[in-house]
């Protein structure tokens, strides 16, 4: 029955490739040419899955509204978006971390409101609040490293995977905030109404993730 199909929201790009690989290792039959498709909706009859390819930041939205049962989303996005979804598994893929960076020699000035540029204003402001510091957020949509270079902000909050981009732009990391990995998220209604399919997915993924982790 079509009803037992799982609709899965996935970010395009690297996370999609890694997540599909995990699902294959978990025994889901996904055709080899899957990743090359340029369609936004791709189906696998044999696995009973329909994939929706979305912008990473939008994945939790599709899942919260129930148009997708399951999603793969970075922890950064989950914190930023605060959607009402179950976070069932840490897939341990696309690992990176969130960090604060500034120009070398940056010192916190006491007299003016410090400015922070980021793609993640919610996440960043709750982080600084927890540190007991009030900062002003400047929301940018990309190339965050520019902000301190041109004087738009004193510091930035962004994802760091290798640190190469920071280095090339002459920025230094001042604080590591948290590690980020991709998570398996589930719509609260699907979690109940499609419990069998979702439980099975979790049970099949768990050993695969554990194995990947120890082999690293």
């Amino acid at each position, binding site marked *: 029955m079509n*009803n037992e199909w799982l609709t899965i929201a996935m970010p395009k790009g690297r996370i999609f490739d890694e997540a599909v690989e995990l699902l294959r290792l978990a025994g889901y039959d996904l055709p080899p040419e899957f990743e090359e498709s340029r369609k936004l909706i791709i189906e696998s009859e044999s696995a009973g899955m329909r994939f929706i390819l979305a912008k990473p930041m939008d994945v939790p*939205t599709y899942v*919260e*509204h*129930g*148009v997708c049962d399951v999603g793969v989303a970075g922890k950064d996005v989950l914190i930023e978006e605060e959607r*009402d*979804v*179950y*976070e*069932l*598994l*840490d897939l341990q893929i696309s690992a990176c971390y969130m960090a604060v960076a500034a120009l070398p020699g940056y010192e916190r000035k006491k007299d003016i409101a410090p400015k922070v540029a980021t793609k993640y204003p919610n996440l960043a402001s709750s982080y600084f609040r927890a540190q007991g510091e009030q900062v002003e957020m400047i929301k940018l949509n990309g190339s965050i490293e520019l902000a301190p270079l041109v004087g738009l902000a004193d510091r930035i909050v962004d994802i760091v995977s290798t640190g190469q981009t920071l280095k090339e732009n002459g920025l230094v990391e001042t604080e590591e905030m948290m590690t980020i990995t991709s*998570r398996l998220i589930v*719509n*609260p*209604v*699907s979690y*109940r*109404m499609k*419990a069998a399919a979702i439980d099975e997915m979790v049970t099949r993924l768990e050993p695969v993730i554990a194995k990947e982790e120890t082999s690293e």
Partner: protein
Amino acid sequence: MVKPLMFEKPTGMRDTLPNLYRVKESIRKKTSTEMRQWGYEPIETPTLEYFDTVGYASAILEQQLFKLLDQQGHPLVLRPDMTAPIARIAASTLKEKQRPVRLTYDANVFRAQQREGGKTAEFEQVGVELIGDETVSADGEVIALMLSAMNRIELQDVQVAIGNVAFVHALLIDILGSEERAEVLKRYLYEKNYVGFRRHVESLSLSSIDKRRLEKLLKLRGGREVLDEAYGIAETEEARQALDDLVQLSDVLTSFGVEENVRFDLNLLMHMSYYTGVVFEAYSSNLGYPIGSGGRYDELLRRFDQQEAATGFGLRLDLLVEALGSAEVEQEQSTCLIFSHERRAEAVREAKRLRENGETVVLQDIAGIADVDAFSQAYPKVEYLIGTNGGGSSE
């Protein structure tokens, strides 16, 4: 903030046009009848309440309350739910009324939304409160009634997840020893963050057995067999008592014949502190959001200076409409009488006669219509009383 354009409404506010109104009305009639037939008496409460009483007692987060000031400067709220106002009444005006009290309501409630997109800030809720009955039969009755109301409107493929926060609480206190430490894990459950829950459990200095008990909690959902599994991690009297209640509840629901529609979900936690015992949430496979919820809130009345057991549920009418989807309600068959001024008196008499027979009649002066053909198309039956020479003319 830009000045709103003429057609705009505040975030999350919606209009109900005639077609939708009919659908809502038909659902409202059926659900209310069901609740009345179970002996629940309807009541109404004011739209505005004091922030310090109902606003404070409500389960709805403060940032979701619409607040305003009355003329003396007291903070008010637009009621965010009906449970707190009914608790206020139960603890005051209805204090002397013989217990248990069964009340039902059908009212609009208000919750401010940050983001629109499918989330309404004002919606109609139908529900019941059963006050002064602490038995499992009472828990069973409200769950069965909720299912029965959904059955009455022919909503297909419905499921209710049932948990017991008393069990979660007892288990966490037993293993962690303090309210503060239990609170941290409760918050992970409340936020549906199982990854965070597991990670926090790993970080605690606990025996591996206790860690396994906590991790087991996340897996406890399914049919009645889940309760047997739950006994395996319950080591205190309180925890076992909470499970005994669920076993008994399962029997009660079987008596009501609704066991097919319920599943146990022992990590269900819809609020950090409001509920005290059995909690439940209703889902339909047609919709991505829960359509109703409820549970036991024995501590709420204490906020109104009365210690009393209570349970109840609320169903969201707007979501029921959405879940029913294509359900079209037939428009009443109405007759349109189009008259010219010469025969007005005759038309009025005819309309009166038909209305007395229970028909719906639209009375329209032909001079008021620009395009007669287009106008009359909307009516299945059209009669013309036009000109001076008509048969029934009394002039």
